[in-house]
């Protein structure tokens, strides 16, 4: 205690305190405002990029090129951003199982850590959309269901159908069902425009509007079947099928019984 009080008025104290304060405040803001879901230190980030590059060379470069520059079968990944990688790889779309019309959602090949590494590597090549943070995805707090429904019907239903069940595009491509998709992946799809899907810019579809859409999708997922079994939520086609199979089938079956002679 005596040593500290002796040095309290040392002329180096003020500048030292200032430096400490700046470092402290700067680090606090950097940690708090990080865009990535799992904020990394600089060292962690370098390690992730290295790991990501390794995974990339092993699993992705055969189609996307050794430097992610793309090729005849796959587009360039320079500038697609961590969000694109997270979306494509964490939903299992990439690596593609076969060279079909489009990549399908399936069981992901890489775990969360590997996905983050890949994302870090690809985003290190050039700036692009970042993976949205937890704070940015609080749709329960920031979204509105009714507004989300209107936005979904205006911007999404023409491809994904009124209940998000998916729909047909040209030449065998399709817009997949949006049911059972993680909110972060829905958000990433909106901002990166994967494959045939267009991009929905933050100025024309604000982040809050995007959260409303997510809130509506989650509500639609959880909405109980009202009025009976839902028949797929694709409209009159399945309803007509049911009439011609169960409806007429039952009625004609009963008519046959009705006119048969009793034993």
């Amino acid at each position, binding site marked *: 205690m005596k040593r500290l009080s002796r040095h309290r008025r040392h002329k180096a104290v003020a500048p030292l305190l200032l430096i400490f304060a700046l470092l402290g405040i700067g680090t606090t803001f950097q940690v708090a405002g990080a865009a990535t879901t799992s904020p990394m230190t600089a060292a962690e980030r370098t390690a992730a990029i290295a790991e990501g590059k390794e995974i990339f060379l092993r699993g992705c470069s055969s189609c996307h090129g050794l430097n992610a520059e793309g090729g005849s079968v796959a587009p360039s990944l320079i500038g697609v951003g961590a969000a694109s990688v997270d979306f494509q790889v964490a939903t299992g779309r990439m690596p593609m199982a076969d060279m079909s019309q489009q990549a399908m959602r399936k069981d992901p090949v890489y775990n969360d850590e590997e996905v983050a590494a890949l994302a870090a590597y690809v985003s290190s090549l050039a700036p692009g959309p970042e993976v949205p943070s937890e704070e940015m995805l609080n749709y329960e707090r920031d979204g509105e269901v009714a*507004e989300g429904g209107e936005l979904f019907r205006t911007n999404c239903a*023409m491809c994904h159908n009124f209940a998000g069940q998916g*729909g047909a595009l040209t030449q065998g491509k399709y817009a997949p069902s949006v049911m059972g998709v993680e909110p972060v992946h829905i958000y990433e799809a909106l901002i990166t425009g994967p494959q045939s899907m267009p*991009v929905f810019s933050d*100025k024309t579809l604000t982040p809050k509007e995007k959260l409303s859409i997510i809130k509506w999708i989650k509500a639609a997922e959880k909405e109980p079947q009202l009025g009976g*079994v839902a028949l797929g939520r694709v409209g009159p086609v399945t309803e007509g099928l049911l009439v011609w199979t169960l409806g007429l089938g039952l009625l004609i079956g009963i008519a046959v019984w009705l006119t048969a002679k009793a034993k």
Partner: protein
Amino acid sequence: MSKEIQTIQDPGVPAHKLRQTDIDPKAADRAERQVAIMFLLSALSTVLFIYSYFFISTETFIFIPLMGEQNAHQIFLGLGLAFSLLFIGLGAVHWAKTLMPDNEVIAHRHEFRSPDSDRDDFVKTAKEGAAAAGLGRRSLIKRSMGLALGLVGISPIFLLRDLGPTPGDDFKKTSWKAGTRLVTDPGDRPIRADDLEVGAVAQTLPELPAGQDHRPLSDIGKDAVLLIRLRPEDFNLDPERLSWTYQGIIAFSKICSHMGCAVALYEQQTKHLLCPCHQSTFDVTRAAKVIFGPAARPLPQLAITVDEEGCLVAQAPFNEPVGPSFWERSA
């Protein structure tokens, strides 16, 4: 048919076969009990129906095998009604089949043609009546009656004139004029060129004029516009159409030129627009030229530019009517 060929003879209505319930009184009693049980099940179902209506809350959900989570109020109300009706029917039919006499009966068909004497009488009466009316001789009456009845017959048609206005040049006009800002749908926010990334789309409408706070659906039905941003080098347009784009942003009427559905399904990779109604496909790089499907005309393109504040605006109204075709479209 030639008389020489003899066909196989008709053996006549087969003999009546008795049923179990005709022979065995115990079987008949059993059938009676079965019918009674069905009627009773119907009564019970009606009770279930009434109970569900008043006493099962509309917020309760239960799990039903094969059907999943269902609203308890709805399902029991419906099943109650369904079975209350079904069992009456099944009971009545079972009763008819097992207990009512099932002897086939033969009835005879009579010829429809009336006897000649009746036909002659009819003709005589008709002729006499017509002669009495005198239409044949009195052509003045006949012609003037024709005129009167004919005219009164068409007068109701004129009453329908005010069903609607005549279209005039409505089909050729939309709310878009030179300088009208494009605003987001919904939200009504102006859009700047760099608000859109390459590959982005935006649903837009014309900005509401001052003093109007509401868009009637009839306006939306002609004004809806789709904005798409490509790279300028992606376009394959003639110089005039190219001048209607702005830095790779192109605007089309969202109302399909085939039958009016909203065309907003944009495939980012192929740069095609697909209308989900009848699968008409439009190539955005060639000013929405039709490349597949029943649409015969491209989507009308809206010429756009930016105003002094950098917001996207229309350069001019559409150069052609939007939406489905009509007879005088090009006149």
